[in-house]
Protein backbone atom coordinates (compact mmCIF):
# COMPACT_ATOMS: atom_id res chain seq x y z
CA UNK A 1 0.00 0.00 0.00
CA UNK A 2 2.74 2.45 1.01
CA UNK A 3 4.72 1.51 -2.11
CA UNK A 4 1.68 2.26 -4.27
CA UNK A 5 1.26 5.63 -2.57
CA UNK A 6 4.88 6.45 -3.29
CA UNK A 7 4.45 5.60 -6.97
CA UNK A 8 1.24 7.64 -7.04
CA UNK A 9 3.13 10.56 -5.50
CA UNK A 10 5.61 10.66 -8.39
CA UNK A 11 2.82 10.27 -10.94
CA UNK A 12 0.98 13.24 -9.41
CA UNK A 13 4.20 15.25 -9.40
CA UNK A 14 4.64 14.59 -13.09
CA UNK A 15 1.02 15.53 -13.74
CA UNK A 16 1.54 18.90 -12.05
CA UNK A 17 4.13 19.68 -14.72
CA UNK A 18 1.66 19.05 -17.51
CA UNK A 19 -1.51 20.56 -16.06
CA UNK A 20 -0.84 24.16 -15.09
CA UNK A 21 -2.61 25.65 -12.11
CA UNK A 22 -3.03 29.22 -10.87
CA UNK A 23 0.13 30.78 -9.44
CA UNK A 24 -0.38 32.03 -5.89
CA UNK A 25 1.62 35.18 -5.16
CA UNK A 26 2.23 37.48 -2.22
CA UNK A 27 5.09 39.29 -0.52
CA UNK A 28 5.43 36.73 2.30
CA UNK A 29 5.19 33.83 -0.11
CA UNK A 30 8.03 35.40 -2.09
CA UNK A 31 10.20 35.92 1.00
CA UNK A 32 9.48 32.42 2.32
CA UNK A 33 9.49 30.62 -1.04
CA UNK A 34 12.24 28.26 0.18
CA UNK A 35 9.48 26.44 2.08
CA UNK A 36 7.78 25.63 -1.25
CA UNK A 37 10.58 24.54 -3.58
CA UNK A 38 9.62 23.70 -7.17
CA UNK A 39 12.97 22.02 -7.98
CA UNK A 40 13.03 23.35 -11.53
CA UNK A 41 16.59 24.21 -12.49
CA UNK A 42 17.81 25.44 -15.88
CA UNK A 43 14.62 24.11 -17.40
CA UNK A 44 13.28 26.60 -19.95
CA UNK A 45 15.14 28.26 -22.79
CA UNK A 46 13.76 31.64 -23.75
CA UNK A 47 14.32 35.36 -23.49
CA UNK A 48 16.71 36.13 -20.63
CA UNK A 49 16.97 39.56 -18.99
CA UNK A 50 20.31 41.29 -19.39
CA UNK A 51 21.16 44.48 -17.57
CA UNK A 52 23.09 47.04 -19.60
CA UNK A 53 24.32 50.46 -18.56
CA UNK A 54 26.29 53.43 -19.79
CA UNK A 55 27.72 56.55 -18.21
CA UNK A 56 28.83 60.00 -19.33
CA UNK A 57 31.22 62.80 -18.46
CA UNK A 58 31.48 66.38 -19.70
CA UNK A 59 34.32 67.00 -22.15
CA UNK A 60 36.34 70.26 -22.38
CA UNK A 61 33.54 71.90 -24.43
CA UNK A 62 30.94 71.00 -21.81
CA UNK A 63 29.35 68.33 -24.02
CA UNK A 64 28.23 65.04 -22.50
CA UNK A 65 30.28 62.12 -23.83
CA UNK A 66 28.62 58.75 -23.32
CA UNK A 67 30.34 55.39 -23.17
CA UNK A 68 28.93 52.48 -25.17
CA UNK A 69 26.23 50.37 -23.52
CA UNK A 70 27.97 47.71 -21.50
CA UNK A 71 26.62 44.43 -20.23
CA UNK A 72 26.48 44.08 -16.46
CA UNK A 73 26.80 40.36 -16.25
CA UNK A 74 28.99 38.47 -13.80
CA UNK A 75 31.95 36.62 -15.27
CA UNK A 76 34.44 34.93 -12.97
CA UNK A 77 37.56 32.75 -13.25
CA UNK A 78 37.19 29.11 -12.28
CA UNK A 79 39.33 27.49 -9.60
CA UNK A 80 38.99 24.05 -7.98
CA UNK A 81 39.33 25.59 -4.49
CA UNK A 82 36.04 27.40 -5.11
CA UNK A 83 34.32 24.13 -4.31
CA UNK A 84 35.03 25.00 -0.66
CA UNK A 85 34.90 28.78 -0.72
CA UNK A 86 33.25 30.74 -3.51
CA UNK A 87 32.09 34.07 -2.12
CA UNK A 88 32.70 36.17 -5.20
CA UNK A 89 31.07 33.77 -7.67
CA UNK A 90 28.05 33.30 -5.42
CA UNK A 91 27.64 37.06 -5.13
CA UNK A 92 27.79 37.28 -8.93
CA UNK A 93 25.10 34.61 -9.24
CA UNK A 94 22.94 36.42 -6.67
CA UNK A 95 23.39 39.62 -8.67
CA UNK A 96 22.07 37.90 -11.82
CA UNK A 97 19.15 36.45 -9.80
CA UNK A 98 18.34 40.00 -8.78
CA UNK A 99 18.18 41.04 -12.44
CA UNK A 100 15.78 38.11 -13.04
CA UNK A 101 13.61 39.28 -10.13
CA UNK A 102 13.58 42.81 -11.54
CA UNK A 103 12.29 41.44 -14.84
CA UNK A 104 9.68 39.37 -13.00
CA UNK A 105 8.57 42.42 -10.96
CA UNK A 106 8.24 44.47 -14.17
CA UNK A 107 6.06 41.76 -15.68
CA UNK A 108 3.79 41.77 -12.63
CA UNK A 109 3.50 45.55 -12.53
CA UNK A 110 -0.04 46.80 -13.27
CA UNK A 111 -0.51 48.90 -16.43
CA UNK A 112 0.53 52.51 -15.91
CA UNK A 113 2.38 51.84 -12.65
CA UNK A 114 5.76 53.48 -12.10
CA UNK A 115 8.61 50.94 -12.12
CA UNK A 116 10.65 53.24 -9.88
CA UNK A 117 8.49 52.25 -6.92
CA UNK A 118 9.90 48.72 -7.07
CA UNK A 119 12.52 47.63 -4.56
CA UNK A 120 14.30 45.81 -7.37
CA UNK A 121 14.41 49.03 -9.45
CA UNK A 122 16.20 50.80 -6.59
CA UNK A 123 18.58 47.86 -6.29
CA UNK A 124 19.26 47.98 -10.05
CA UNK A 125 20.15 51.67 -9.69
CA UNK A 126 22.58 50.74 -6.89
CA UNK A 127 24.05 47.85 -8.89
CA UNK A 128 24.57 50.06 -11.95
CA UNK A 129 26.15 52.82 -9.85
CA UNK A 130 28.58 50.38 -8.19
CA UNK A 131 29.53 48.66 -11.46
CA UNK A 132 30.01 51.87 -13.45
CA UNK A 133 32.07 53.40 -10.68
CA UNK A 134 34.26 50.30 -10.57
CA UNK A 135 34.77 50.25 -14.35
CA UNK A 136 34.83 53.95 -15.25
CA UNK A 137 35.48 55.85 -12.05
CA UNK A 138 33.69 59.11 -11.36
CA UNK A 139 31.08 60.16 -13.90
CA UNK A 140 28.30 62.72 -14.03
CA UNK A 141 25.40 60.86 -15.68
CA UNK A 142 24.31 57.28 -16.08
CA UNK A 143 21.52 55.25 -17.58
CA UNK A 144 20.53 51.61 -17.62
CA UNK A 145 18.25 49.34 -19.56
CA UNK A 146 16.82 45.87 -19.29
CA UNK A 147 17.30 44.00 -22.52
CA UNK A 148 15.63 40.69 -23.22
CA UNK A 149 17.97 38.37 -25.12
CA UNK A 150 17.12 35.10 -26.82
CA UNK A 151 20.21 32.92 -27.22
CA UNK A 152 20.73 29.93 -29.42
CA UNK A 153 23.70 27.55 -29.60
CA UNK A 154 25.43 29.87 -32.07
CA UNK A 155 24.91 33.04 -30.02
CA UNK A 156 22.31 35.79 -29.81
CA UNK A 157 19.22 35.09 -31.90
CA UNK A 158 16.96 37.99 -30.97
CA UNK A 159 16.81 40.86 -28.48
CA UNK A 160 14.62 43.79 -27.51
CA UNK A 161 14.68 46.49 -24.85
CA UNK A 162 12.05 46.02 -22.15
CA UNK A 163 12.81 49.09 -20.07
CA UNK A 164 15.15 52.06 -20.33
CA UNK A 165 15.70 54.23 -17.29
CA UNK A 166 15.70 58.00 -17.50
CA UNK A 167 19.17 59.60 -17.49
CA UNK A 168 20.30 59.73 -13.89
CA UNK A 169 22.31 62.76 -12.79
CA UNK A 170 24.88 61.62 -10.27
CA UNK A 171 24.92 63.39 -6.93
CA UNK A 172 27.49 66.23 -6.99
CA UNK A 173 27.71 66.23 -10.81
Amino acid at each position, binding site marked *: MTEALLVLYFVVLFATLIFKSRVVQGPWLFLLRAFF*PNWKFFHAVGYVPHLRARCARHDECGQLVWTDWMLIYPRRRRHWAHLFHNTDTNLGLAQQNLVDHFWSDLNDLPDGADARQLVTYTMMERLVALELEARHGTHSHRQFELRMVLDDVGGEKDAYTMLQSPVIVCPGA
Partner: protein
Amino acid sequence: MSWSLTLPQALRLTECLFAWSLAIQTIEFLRMRTATGDQGLWAWPLQRRDIPLTRVRRLLDGLFMPQVHQLHLALRLLAAIALFLQGGSLALMAFLFLGNVLILIRWRGAFNGGSDFLTLVVLTGLLMAHALDRWFGAELAIQAGLWYICIQAVTSYFMSGAVKALQPEWRSGRAMTIFLNSAIYGPLPLRHPLRRPAWALLGSWTFIIWECVFPLALVDVTYAVAFCAVAMVFHFLVFWFFGLNRFMWAWMASFPAIIWCAGQPLGAGL
Protein backbone atom coordinates in the same frame (compact mmCIF):
# COMPACT_ATOMS: atom_id res chain seq x y z
CA MET B 1 30.21 -5.36 1.81
CA SER B 2 27.05 -3.83 3.23
CA TRP B 3 26.25 -0.16 2.61
CA SER B 4 23.32 -0.18 5.04
CA LEU B 5 23.22 2.47 7.74
CA THR B 6 21.72 2.10 11.18
CA LEU B 7 19.33 4.82 12.32
CA PRO B 8 21.88 6.49 14.67
CA GLN B 9 24.58 6.30 11.97
CA ALA B 10 22.29 7.91 9.38
CA LEU B 11 21.35 10.72 11.76
CA ARG B 12 24.95 11.36 12.79
CA LEU B 13 26.22 11.35 9.19
CA THR B 14 23.45 13.73 8.17
CA GLU B 15 24.37 16.07 11.03
CA CYS B 16 28.08 16.03 10.13
CA LEU B 17 27.54 16.60 6.39
CA PHE B 18 24.95 19.27 7.06
CA ALA B 19 27.24 21.04 9.54
CA TRP B 20 30.02 21.04 6.93
CA SER B 21 27.66 22.50 4.30
CA LEU B 22 26.36 25.10 6.74
CA ALA B 23 29.87 26.13 7.79
CA ILE B 24 30.91 26.67 4.16
CA GLN B 25 27.81 28.80 3.53
CA THR B 26 28.26 30.79 6.73
CA ILE B 27 31.93 31.60 6.13
CA GLU B 28 30.96 32.86 2.67
CA PHE B 29 28.17 35.00 4.18
CA LEU B 30 30.60 36.42 6.73
CA ARG B 31 32.83 37.59 3.87
CA MET B 32 29.93 39.42 2.17
CA ARG B 33 30.00 42.24 4.69
CA THR B 34 30.58 44.93 2.03
CA ALA B 35 27.72 43.70 -0.16
CA THR B 36 25.27 43.65 2.76
CA GLY B 37 26.55 46.88 4.36
CA ASP B 38 24.62 50.12 4.05
CA GLN B 39 26.56 51.15 0.91
CA GLY B 40 26.37 47.70 -0.69
CA LEU B 41 23.97 46.29 -3.26
CA TRP B 42 22.08 44.27 -0.65
CA ALA B 43 21.80 47.13 1.85
CA TRP B 44 18.93 46.52 4.26
CA PRO B 45 17.71 50.16 4.02
CA LEU B 46 16.98 49.44 0.30
CA GLN B 47 15.38 46.06 0.91
CA ARG B 48 13.26 46.79 3.95
CA ARG B 49 10.37 47.97 1.75
CA ASP B 50 9.90 44.30 0.79
CA ILE B 51 8.48 43.66 4.26
CA PRO B 52 4.74 44.30 4.24
CA LEU B 53 4.10 44.63 8.00
CA THR B 54 5.47 47.70 9.81
CA ARG B 55 5.92 45.87 13.11
CA VAL B 56 7.88 43.04 11.50
CA ARG B 57 9.90 45.56 9.49
CA ARG B 58 10.95 47.32 12.70
CA LEU B 59 11.95 44.05 14.31
CA LEU B 60 14.00 43.11 11.25
CA ASP B 61 15.58 46.59 11.19
CA GLY B 62 17.18 45.66 14.51
CA LEU B 63 18.12 42.12 13.57
CA PHE B 64 19.61 43.17 10.24
CA MET B 65 21.80 45.98 11.55
CA PRO B 66 25.22 45.12 10.05
CA GLN B 67 26.88 44.35 13.41
CA VAL B 68 23.93 42.27 14.65
CA HIS B 69 23.80 40.36 11.37
CA GLN B 70 27.54 39.61 11.55
CA LEU B 71 27.13 38.46 15.16
CA HIS B 72 24.30 36.17 14.10
CA LEU B 73 26.51 34.66 11.38
CA ALA B 74 29.38 34.13 13.84
CA LEU B 75 27.01 32.32 16.24
CA ARG B 76 25.68 30.27 13.34
CA LEU B 77 29.21 29.17 12.52
CA LEU B 78 29.77 28.13 16.14
CA ALA B 79 26.47 26.25 16.08
CA ALA B 80 27.55 24.41 12.92
CA ILE B 81 30.82 23.41 14.62
CA ALA B 82 28.90 22.21 17.70
CA LEU B 83 26.57 20.18 15.46
CA PHE B 84 29.56 18.57 13.77
CA LEU B 85 31.38 17.75 17.00
CA GLN B 86 28.56 16.91 19.42
CA GLY B 87 25.45 16.27 17.34
CA GLY B 88 22.15 18.08 17.41
CA SER B 89 19.78 19.09 20.17
CA LEU B 90 16.38 20.73 20.05
CA ALA B 91 17.79 24.11 21.12
CA LEU B 92 20.60 23.99 18.56
CA MET B 93 18.35 22.96 15.68
CA ALA B 94 15.70 25.54 16.62
CA PHE B 95 18.36 28.28 16.66
CA LEU B 96 19.69 27.18 13.26
CA PHE B 97 16.18 26.89 11.82
CA LEU B 98 15.01 30.35 12.93
CA GLY B 99 18.35 31.86 11.95
CA ASN B 100 18.09 30.27 8.52
CA VAL B 101 14.65 31.79 7.97
CA LEU B 102 16.09 35.20 8.90
CA ILE B 103 18.98 34.78 6.48
CA LEU B 104 16.57 33.82 3.71
CA ILE B 105 14.55 36.99 4.32
CA ARG B 106 17.80 39.01 4.41
CA TRP B 107 18.52 37.77 0.86
CA ARG B 108 14.97 38.40 -0.44
CA GLY B 109 13.84 34.79 -0.02
CA ALA B 110 16.89 32.95 -1.32
CA PHE B 111 20.56 33.65 -1.84
CA ASN B 112 21.54 30.70 -4.00
CA GLY B 113 18.20 29.18 -5.06
CA GLY B 114 18.19 25.38 -4.92
CA SER B 115 20.93 25.03 -2.32
CA ASP B 116 18.93 27.27 0.04
CA PHE B 117 15.87 25.12 -0.53
CA LEU B 118 17.66 21.86 0.23
CA THR B 119 19.47 23.39 3.20
CA LEU B 120 16.06 24.24 4.63
CA VAL B 121 14.79 20.73 3.88
CA VAL B 122 17.67 19.03 5.75
CA LEU B 123 17.39 21.53 8.58
CA THR B 124 13.65 20.86 8.86
CA GLY B 125 14.29 17.10 8.89
CA LEU B 126 16.89 17.44 11.64
CA LEU B 127 14.56 19.73 13.60
CA MET B 128 11.80 17.12 13.30
CA ALA B 129 14.20 14.42 14.52
CA HIS B 130 14.91 16.41 17.67
CA ALA B 131 11.53 18.08 18.25
CA LEU B 132 9.11 15.18 17.77
CA ASP B 133 10.73 12.75 20.19
CA ARG B 134 8.77 13.95 23.23
CA TRP B 135 5.51 12.96 21.51
CA PHE B 136 6.48 9.99 19.37
CA GLY B 137 9.71 8.69 20.91
CA ALA B 138 13.25 9.26 19.65
CA GLU B 139 13.29 6.45 17.09
CA LEU B 140 10.10 7.43 15.31
CA ALA B 141 11.08 11.12 15.38
CA ILE B 142 14.42 10.39 13.70
CA GLN B 143 12.74 8.14 11.15
CA ALA B 144 10.23 10.89 10.32
CA GLY B 145 13.04 13.42 9.88
CA LEU B 146 15.09 11.14 7.63
CA TRP B 147 12.08 10.18 5.50
CA TYR B 148 11.21 13.85 5.08
CA ILE B 149 14.73 14.63 3.86
CA CYS B 150 14.79 11.57 1.61
CA ILE B 151 11.44 12.23 -0.08
CA GLN B 152 12.30 15.90 -0.72
CA ALA B 153 15.76 15.07 -2.09
CA VAL B 154 14.45 12.31 -4.38
CA THR B 155 11.66 14.67 -5.49
CA SER B 156 14.24 17.33 -6.35
CA TYR B 157 16.06 15.01 -8.77
CA PHE B 158 12.85 13.61 -10.25
CA MET B 159 11.26 17.03 -10.82
CA SER B 160 14.45 18.47 -12.23
CA GLY B 161 14.65 15.65 -14.78
CA ALA B 162 10.93 15.52 -15.61
CA VAL B 163 10.70 19.24 -16.28
CA LYS B 164 13.64 18.98 -18.69
CA ALA B 165 12.09 15.99 -20.45
CA LEU B 166 9.06 18.14 -21.26
CA GLN B 167 11.16 20.87 -22.93
CA PRO B 168 11.93 20.40 -26.65
CA GLU B 169 15.20 22.36 -26.29
CA TRP B 170 16.42 19.87 -23.67
CA ARG B 171 15.28 16.88 -25.70
CA SER B 172 17.26 18.16 -28.70
CA GLY B 173 20.36 18.87 -26.59
CA ARG B 174 20.38 22.58 -27.51
CA ALA B 175 19.44 23.77 -24.02
CA MET B 176 22.58 22.32 -22.46
CA THR B 177 24.87 24.26 -24.83
CA ILE B 178 22.82 27.46 -24.41
CA PHE B 179 22.93 27.31 -20.60
CA LEU B 180 26.64 26.43 -20.54
CA ASN B 181 27.43 29.37 -22.83
CA SER B 182 25.69 31.79 -20.48
CA ALA B 183 27.36 30.40 -17.34
CA ILE B 184 29.33 32.57 -14.97
CA TYR B 185 32.71 31.18 -16.12
CA GLY B 186 32.07 32.32 -19.66
CA PRO B 187 30.98 30.60 -22.87
CA LEU B 188 32.26 27.15 -23.78
CA PRO B 189 35.54 27.16 -25.74
CA LEU B 190 34.92 26.96 -29.50
CA ARG B 191 36.23 23.40 -29.74
CA HIS B 192 34.52 22.11 -26.58
CA PRO B 193 32.78 18.73 -27.16
CA LEU B 194 29.49 20.00 -25.72
CA ARG B 195 29.28 22.48 -28.61
CA ARG B 196 28.83 19.45 -30.87
CA PRO B 197 25.13 18.56 -31.19
CA ALA B 198 25.72 14.81 -30.78
CA TRP B 199 27.62 15.20 -27.50
CA ALA B 200 25.14 17.76 -26.18
CA LEU B 201 22.28 15.41 -27.05
CA LEU B 202 23.97 12.51 -25.29
CA GLY B 203 24.78 14.62 -22.23
CA SER B 204 21.24 16.00 -22.01
CA TRP B 205 19.55 12.61 -22.24
CA THR B 206 21.99 11.06 -19.78
CA PHE B 207 21.03 13.62 -17.14
CA ILE B 208 17.31 13.60 -17.98
CA ILE B 209 17.05 9.81 -17.69
CA TRP B 210 19.23 9.60 -14.59
CA GLU B 211 17.21 12.30 -12.81
CA CYS B 212 13.85 10.82 -13.84
CA VAL B 213 14.70 7.33 -12.57
CA PHE B 214 16.23 8.59 -9.32
CA PRO B 215 13.22 7.28 -7.28
CA LEU B 216 14.56 3.78 -8.08
CA ALA B 217 17.28 4.56 -5.52
CA LEU B 218 14.68 3.60 -2.91
CA VAL B 219 14.49 0.02 -4.19
CA ASP B 220 17.71 -1.15 -2.60
CA VAL B 221 20.66 0.20 -0.59
CA THR B 222 23.15 -0.68 -3.34
CA TYR B 223 21.05 1.26 -5.86
CA ALA B 224 20.88 4.18 -3.43
CA VAL B 225 24.66 4.24 -3.02
CA ALA B 226 25.14 4.07 -6.80
CA PHE B 227 22.63 6.89 -7.43
CA CYS B 228 24.27 9.04 -4.74
CA ALA B 229 27.74 8.40 -6.19
CA VAL B 230 26.57 9.52 -9.64
CA ALA B 231 24.85 12.49 -7.98
CA MET B 232 28.19 13.59 -6.53
CA VAL B 233 29.75 13.56 -10.01
CA PHE B 234 26.71 15.43 -11.33
CA HIS B 235 26.94 18.12 -8.63
CA PHE B 236 30.68 18.46 -9.20
CA LEU B 237 30.03 19.11 -12.90
CA VAL B 238 27.37 21.67 -11.97
CA PHE B 239 29.97 23.37 -9.77
CA TRP B 240 32.63 23.15 -12.46
CA PHE B 241 30.48 24.72 -15.18
CA PHE B 242 28.14 26.98 -13.20
CA GLY B 243 30.10 27.77 -10.04
CA LEU B 244 27.36 26.36 -7.79
CA ASN B 245 29.59 24.93 -5.04
CA ARG B 246 26.85 25.12 -2.39
CA PHE B 247 24.64 22.73 -4.35
CA MET B 248 27.12 19.88 -3.98
CA TRP B 249 27.41 20.16 -0.19
CA ALA B 250 23.71 20.85 0.39
CA TRP B 251 22.61 17.75 -1.56
CA MET B 252 25.36 15.59 -0.10
CA ALA B 253 23.83 16.16 3.34
CA SER B 254 20.71 14.36 2.14
CA PHE B 255 22.53 11.20 0.96
CA PRO B 256 22.61 9.37 4.34
CA ALA B 257 18.83 9.78 4.57
CA ILE B 258 18.37 8.35 1.05
CA ILE B 259 20.67 5.40 1.80
CA TRP B 260 19.00 4.69 5.15
CA CYS B 261 15.49 4.89 3.68
CA ALA B 262 16.47 2.53 0.85
CA GLY B 263 17.40 -0.04 3.49
CA GLN B 264 13.95 0.03 5.13
CA PRO B 265 11.17 -2.51 4.43
CA LEU B 266 9.28 0.04 2.33
CA GLY B 267 12.29 0.41 0.04
CA ALA B 268 12.93 -3.33 -0.14
CA GLY B 269 9.36 -4.07 -1.08
CA LEU B 270 9.05 -1.42 -3.77
